[in-house]
């Protein structure tokens, strides 16, 4: 930063926040989906906050594999 331009700094933060959201969105959606039941995922639109199936799903994948 060479000079103080508040609007430019604000714009830079806005761009970076949008960029981070876009970059992280697929990972977040997939993580959320990994905590839901099958019925919740296919019920369009699927929720964007984690559900309560996290341990069950991961335990199933790690011990017996997906069906």
């Amino acid at each position, binding site marked *: 930063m060479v000079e103080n331009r508040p609007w430019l700094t604000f714009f830079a933060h806005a761009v970076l926040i949008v*960029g981070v959201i876009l970059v992280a969105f697929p990972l977040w959606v997939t993580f959320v989906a990994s905590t839901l039941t099958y019925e919740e995922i296919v019920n369009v639109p699927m929720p964007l906050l984690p559900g309560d199936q996290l341990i069950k799903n991961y335990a199933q994948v790690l011990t017996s594999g997906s069906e």
Partner: protein
Amino acid sequence: MEKKVVFRSAWLPYALVAPQIAITIIFFFWPAAQAVYYSFLVQDPFGLSTQFVWFQNYKELFNSSHYLDSFRITAIFSVLVAVSGIVISLFLATMADHVLRGALAYKTMLIWPYAVAPAIAGVLWAFIFAPSIGIATYVLKRWGIDWNWIINGDQAMLLIVVAATWKQISYNFLFFLAGLQSIPRSLIEAAAIDGATPFRRFWTIVFPLLSPTTFFLLVINMVYAFFGTFGVIDATTQGGPAGSTQILVYKVYHDGVKAADLGGSAAQSVILMIIVIALTVAQFRFVERKVQY
């Protein structure tokens, strides 16, 4: 004065480079020679009879509209991936270079996708854009866009471009950030004192000084789009619908493994190999020399 190590023994230097030479021969020259040999053969799908046909495979390829179409698709795909990846990450890197507060957090978050394998990146985006249950599909339907990449070739292309670009943004971002930070502050400060706006400083000082980085990334991204995106395509569209996302490297796999046309597939590999060699030579000639001003 360059320092040189002189070996007194006649065989020791050869013994020391032998492992590297052996690896290159076994893992590159041998398979490459096999591919060239196979490209002159025609085999029946069961491998029972083989005939030597010289350049017939190549002639068939260049008379096949599917193959020429695949060239066109590869060109569109690689230009879209390389250009959009470079533009987006240059924009983000310039902004990340500007901010002071939270810079580390932004950088960490933007470098994330590099840890994701290409096939997984494809699956992530295919899941979001899934025709019936995808969350992005839901939003697009609300906006009145009928999204179904399984039957629409242009949308399938868009999907793999997005997935491939998404994965490559972090890599480009890292290189651009390093390039931006190596630009001397004094140049930018001098321009600022002369009254140049940030926009003008970027185009007259920063961008020209970044050109070696940009050129390097252009070559790397082109090679990535040509060869590194196989996983993305195989996990999502598998070249479909109707071959509209069948880039050259996917066609090599499809014709050789699925369609059992080994000779034609080998001929395509040889053509691809020539393209890689040309790209590598271009990179060494222009990048190793560094663009000077």
